[in-house]
């Protein structure tokens, strides 16, 4: 595809965990992200979403496979190009507390990237930080304070301001709004959408709030135990759900209405998620799949475009 900004091909990220074993956090994933789109990423806790995001922005080296950014394989970039790529790709971290240096004032935390890349100095730098604080719903005089003096949601917004500071082109947002109350969520989501329109930003948006993911994403990818199960247009994913795992995931979504909660039906998955150290043979979801067939334990289902733009890895859809 010509207009893809990020192209992920057969990427694996395995962690050695001692005893000659590896934990297969990301296991052979291929997809691409188009310029200017928001790709939502959902899936069970531990399915590898954060690891995939970290690998794409280069915080973890892939065990194998390739990641292409703006047409270039990121592992082959020269120093200067790698630096520029570092600026244009930013990550908003899932755990804001752990990702903010406790000894630095908010001003310097947000300006970290500005300083590293020598973008602005003095008054300009200061103004930029104040402006960013305001955009994420904080106040200019918060710049003088230290991270521990903030609430959980305020810290998360400091992380967002830091990512936006260097005018990135691509942002991996790992649960960027999960610690925020709904009104501020709305404000941040609107900000992300505005930035996307004004500056043509591209997002990989990791979240578990399906209502919000559906709202913000053009397309949504669904992960399970290190693999990508399904990827489609966001409305299509909700309306024509193909993968049995996606079906179960969507059915568990809590709805903010006590009248509805008592009436809807959940598809409960049987059993535990298997270990990512020894994932099941064939399809990794088969041990909990209500539709599992013989072939599912024998053959890894092919990752294929079942309908235009609707990708799925499931034997139910193979001839």
């Amino acid at each position, binding site marked *: 595809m010509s207009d893809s900004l990020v192209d992920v091909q057969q990427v694996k990220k395995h*962690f050695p*965990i001692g005893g000659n074993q590896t934990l297969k956090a990301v296991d052979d994933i291929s997809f691409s992200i188009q310029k200017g789109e928001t790709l939502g990423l959902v*899936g*069970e*806790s*531990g*399915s590898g979403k*954060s690891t995939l995001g970290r690998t794409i922005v280069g915080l973890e080296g892939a065990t194998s496979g390739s990641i292409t950014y703006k047409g270039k394989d990121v592992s082959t970039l020269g120093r200067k190009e790698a630096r520029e790529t570092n600026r244009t790709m930013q990550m908003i971290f*899932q*755990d804001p*507390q*752990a990702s903010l240096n406790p000894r630095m004032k908010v001003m310097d935390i947000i300006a970290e990237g500005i300083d590293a890349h020598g973008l602005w100095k003095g008054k300009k730098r200061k103004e930029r930080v104040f402006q960013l604080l305001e955009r994420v*719903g904080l*106040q200019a*005089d918060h710049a*003088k*304070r230290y991270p*521990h*003096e903030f*609430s*959980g*949601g*305020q810290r998360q917004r400091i992380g967002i301001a830091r990512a936006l500071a260097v005018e990135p082109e691509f942002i991996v947002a790992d*649960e960027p709004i*999960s*610690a*925020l*109350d*709904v*009104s*501020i*969520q*709305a*404000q941040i*989501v*609107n900000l992300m*959408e505005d930035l996307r329109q004004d500056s043509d930003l591209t997002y990989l948006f990791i979240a*578990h709030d*399906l*209502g*919000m993911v*559906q*709202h913000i994403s053009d397309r949504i990818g669904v992960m399970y135990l290190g693999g990508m199960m399904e990827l489609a247009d966001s*409305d299509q994913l909700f309306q024509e759900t193909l993968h049995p795992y996606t079906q179960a*995931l969507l059915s*568990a*979504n*809590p*709805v*903010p*209405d*006590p009248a*509805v*909660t008592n009436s809807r039906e*959940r598809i409960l998955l049987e059993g*535990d*998620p*298997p*270990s990512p*150290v020894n994932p099941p043979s064939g399809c990794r979801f088969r041990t909990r799949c209500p539709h599992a067939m013989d072939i599912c334990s024998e053959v890894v289902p092919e990752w294929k475009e079942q309908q235009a733009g609707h990708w799925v890895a499931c034997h139910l859809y193979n001839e």
Partner: protein
Amino acid sequence: MERLLEVEDLHVSFKTYGGEVQAVRGVNFHVNKGEVLAIVGESGSGKSVTAKTIMGLLPKKVSRISSGVVTFEEDDLLTYSKKEMQKVKGSKISLISQDPMTSLNPTMKIGHQIDESLKLHTDLSKMERKSRVLELLTLVGIPNVEERYSQYPHELSGGMRQRVLIAVALACEPQLIIADEPTTALDVTIQAQILDLLKDLQQRLDTSILIITHDLGVVAEVAQRVAVMYAGVVVESGSVEEIFANPNHPYTWGLLGSIPKQRQDGARERLIPIEGTPPDLFSPPKGCPFAARCEYAMDICVEKMPDSTYLTTDHASKCWLNDSRAKKPKEVAMAGRSR
């Protein structure tokens, strides 16, 4: 109904470089035995500070509790010594804190961290403790427990870390669990499992739960009552049914109005945030803290903080619109609700 925890007129502030932050400014609520109370509200409104105050976890040097009483089993927890509090913590009240990474010890295997709590508060043998730890990890939905038992926090995903904290909190079957955003990092299936687990504890052991969350879906799912906080005060409280069906405070209307609607036609609707920012807690306004952002604000709102109006015996709201002298409160209220 028997009250297990009661917080009255709590005021907490912090000394900072820029001045004194008045984080909690007269909070009142109670939790009945066997009940789930949800606290919702604006980011920075003092929810976590309230929870930390109850647990005696405020940073001593920079914080000040200028007034308030926290009654638990007829004692005021605020008068407890560190040692007395240590006994209560984990065995009678436990806290699931908002930052899993900082509440877990990074140098200790997660299994051992849960074991610590059992060692401290029970007389189980080593063998019994180990099997109890594995059972707890299973309960909170951590798969492959034998393998996970000996992993370190950084080797777990965000959601697993959060669940380890939940397991620590449940270990000694406390009477009260304070859960500060316990499910924010969890996907919906695990969230459902954790919520079921909390509901089960509540029903089986009559455990009371104070859950802090911004997720109104979670509130609808588990809570019997709700307290809505804004800028350090509880502005509205009542039964879940009342708050969802009959919200009274304009801030509550704003909260309910900010949820993305389920799209039928596929059109991307813009979300409706509450315009403006919360007040500066260095010098909080003397009137209603929400007045500056409230579409319905009147002159009096800026001048004076309203008292609670009881709409039913258990549904209270602090808003001048409920004053009989306010103009057309009904019409205003209807306009708010239809948003």
